[in-house]
């Protein structure tokens, strides 16, 4: 009895000492996470103060003043709507287009064409948003390609200034994101598909399965765990609709639809020297993200699917 009880901690220490190389290797990463993600959390206190840089932590405490301000500001409600809308569009487009492209590529028999298509589709991922925004605004200008094509097809008579159409803004952001990221996002699905046992396909073929039936019954179930994990992770980013593209493409005319929480925080927080408001906005975003992530994870577990944590 006692020898077993004695054994347990000894086992732990023994394990610890046998794995010490691994521990040493993970130490820098752990320190990195502590330093750059946990330590800055102390700055959240600013959200409950009238923070002035000269006074620092000694600034007066004001409780929930800035949160009350945020939620009574019409503009904040508007930017939240925009953020959620653009984020949902990105989420839905991101998954459907990436999975669709991955399935298509997987069915291409010629290896060279497959890798060529893959390379071309993921190259835009490496472009900076500044460049992408430049391309998009040139294409959408009144003498840009988009208007020329629509005119040639007889759909419109006079060119439309697309970036001046407030309601088009979300979709412009959505499709730009698809163009930039779709190739990159397929990589993980293609990797998951390559782990599916080829004998399953052979068996299905012998049983008389067509191409679509094989996709539905073998490929999709094969990558389902990957999809579920990615959905859970992406729900943790639902309050992040991106910053650069909205910041670079916004203008007075589309302001009601292009301002996201991040832009609001920059304009009314940082640029005004109102760090408390900026922190309150950022903190709200993080809290919503964490709640969504944990909920999705919990739901997924209840449904008997993959869990992240």
């Amino acid at each position, binding site marked *: 009895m006692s020898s077993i009880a004695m054994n347990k901690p000894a086992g732990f220490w023994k394990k610890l000492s046998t794995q010490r190389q691994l521990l040493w290797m993970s130490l820098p990463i752990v320190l990195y996470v502590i330093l750059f993600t946990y330590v800055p959390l102390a700055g959240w206190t600013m959200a409950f103060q*009238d923070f002035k*840089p*000269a006074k*620092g932590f000694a600034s007066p405490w004001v409780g929930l003043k800035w949160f009350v301000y945020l939620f009574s500001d019409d*503009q904040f409600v508007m930017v939240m709507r925009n953020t959620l809308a653009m984020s949902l569009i990105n989420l839905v487009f991101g998954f459907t287009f990436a999975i669709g492209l991955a399935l298509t590529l997987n069915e291409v028999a010629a290896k060279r064409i497959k890798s060529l298509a893959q390379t071309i589709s993921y190259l835009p991922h490496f472009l900076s948003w500044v460049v992408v925004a*430049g391309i998009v*605004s040139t294409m959408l*200008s*009144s*003498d840009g390609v988009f208007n020329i094509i629509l005119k040639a097809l007889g759909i419109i008579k006079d060119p439309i*200034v697309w*970036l*001046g159409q407030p309601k088009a803004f979300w979709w412009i952001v959505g499709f730009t994101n698809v163009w930039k990221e779709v190739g990159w996002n397929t990589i993980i699905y293609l990797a998951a598909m390559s782990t599916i046992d080829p004998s399953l396909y052979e068996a299905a073929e012998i049983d008389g399965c067509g191409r679509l039936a094989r996709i539905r019954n073998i490929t999709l179930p094969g990558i389902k765990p990957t999809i579920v994990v990615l959905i859970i992770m992406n729900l943790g980013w639902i309050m992040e609709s991106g910053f650069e593209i909205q910041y*670079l493409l916004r*203008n*007075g*005319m*589309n*302001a*009601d639809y292009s301002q996201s929480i991040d832009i609001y925080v920059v*304009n*009314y927080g940082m*640029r*005004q*020297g*109102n760090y*408390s*408001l900026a922190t309150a906005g950022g903190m709200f975003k993080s809290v919503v993200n964490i709640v969504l992530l944990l909920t999705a994870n919990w739901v997924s577990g209840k449904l008997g699917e993959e869990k992240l944590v």
Partner: protein
Amino acid sequence: MRRAILAIASLAALIASPLAAQTVDKLPTTTLPPITITVFTVNTNFPIPPEDNRAYKLIKEKLGVTFKWDIAVGEADQKIGVMIAGQDYPDLLHINSPKFIDAGACIPLEDLIEKYAPNLKKHYQSNPVTWAKMHEKDGHVYCLLDYGIPENGVVDTEYYGPAMFIQKAIMKEAGFPKITTIDQYFDLIAKYKAKHPTTKDGKPTIGFSILTYDWHKFDLCNPPPFLAGYPNDGDGIVDPKTGKYRIQYYGPEAKRWYKLLNGLNDKGLVDRESFTDNYDQYMAKLANGQILGVHDQYWQFQDASKALIAQNRIWETMMPLPIVFDKSIKPHWRDQPLPNLQRGYGISIKAKDPVRIIKFLDAQFDPAWYKIMQWGVEGVDYTYDKSGQPFMTAEQSNRWDDVTWKLHNLAELWWAEAPKYEGHFTKGGLAAALRNNPNLYLSSLRPEDREVLKAYGAYSYSDLMDHNPPVNPPWYPAWQIVPPDGSPEKLAFTKAQDTYAKDLPKVILAKPADFEKEWTAYADDLKKTNIDVFEAYIQKGLDDRMAKYGKLK
């Protein structure tokens, strides 16, 4: 090739050196013990000068001062925050925001100036209102202003300020008419556009464009007060009789201007893409010579003009015009230089020998030193012609495009923020800025510009805007009064700016029949932003200034 140039250059130096040695010998010197002055600057336009820099070597030799530089790269505010938190300051601080002063990092200078710095005293007290404004709320002077105190008459050649700009080609084609009203202005543009629907390289011409991108959006709201004959008070108008301030965004002048733009848009004269273009797209259109007319401040699109000049398309560059609503209004576009308050060097509380430092600051404030730091050495970099005016050969003049030459020979990093002459060194004497001296300026003019200026009997484009800009009233300008960061006033102001950026495009692009409806909606949106709070804040600031410096003039 390179060797040949070097040989010529050293030959020239050899020939010139006896003369140069003479002028250098005449420089004022000091008997004070040598000192090293540490300087913090947020000016990132110039690198740290090399050891063999001619100007700094002379300063060390004759005035006994060696500089040790600390240039704030990256986030200047962050660096300043760290310095303040640690109370860790060099001798001299480059002040460019209220931060150092508010943090008590600087020592009061008024007694030092009074006792040890006769030159600086004369300069800063040349205008009593400026001297009064240099005193902070606690009654002390902390900052030696770097710019904005011209003495012995203003000289301005190139015009960098706000104006209604028009392509020079339009004025030439119309036979250089003298126009003053906005209707005449757009009439010329409309006729020219009808005759020239495209530029030479086939791009469509654009009647009138507006820069609206990000913080540049002030161009969208600035024209109405100017057109109504008010000076540049920015977002508001100060009644010259009563001193009452009001936001001008939705005043009667504004309504008149936007109604005009609305009608012009209906005729296809307004660039609809103005409201979606970013700064680069705007500059590209100007650099292509597409835009025929624009309201802007020249410093904002100077680079576009440079691109046209490089292609020798001078007629497609812009010229400024002092346009107003109608003939009864006297234009007030050009104003006199403004003291650059809270910008310049301040002596820190950690400086070991403030008296020695102020004595040096006073000694370097001397025409001879000004020239060494900014013009170069006489006989090497410039000579005087028979009329006593500075003169440069083409080769000497071209050196000014050579960054390396400037880095090795001028004291730009120090000079940029140093107290310095502006205007003229003496009454009727030489202009402080080298190229503002008439002979050099006139010889640098291009034939096309000479033709334009001759047609209007003007000396320069500044002269064309206003030969004699009126003296600024003591409270001017209202835009220098800024509510503190994070205050409700600042917040209301930001919201009002966002509102006009959002609503004015709708007002301009509406069908003329809908103008009234859109205008009312805009005015209602503005009222919702609480802009009265901002208005009241500026009014209080103006009232304080008027109480202190005298009412209206």
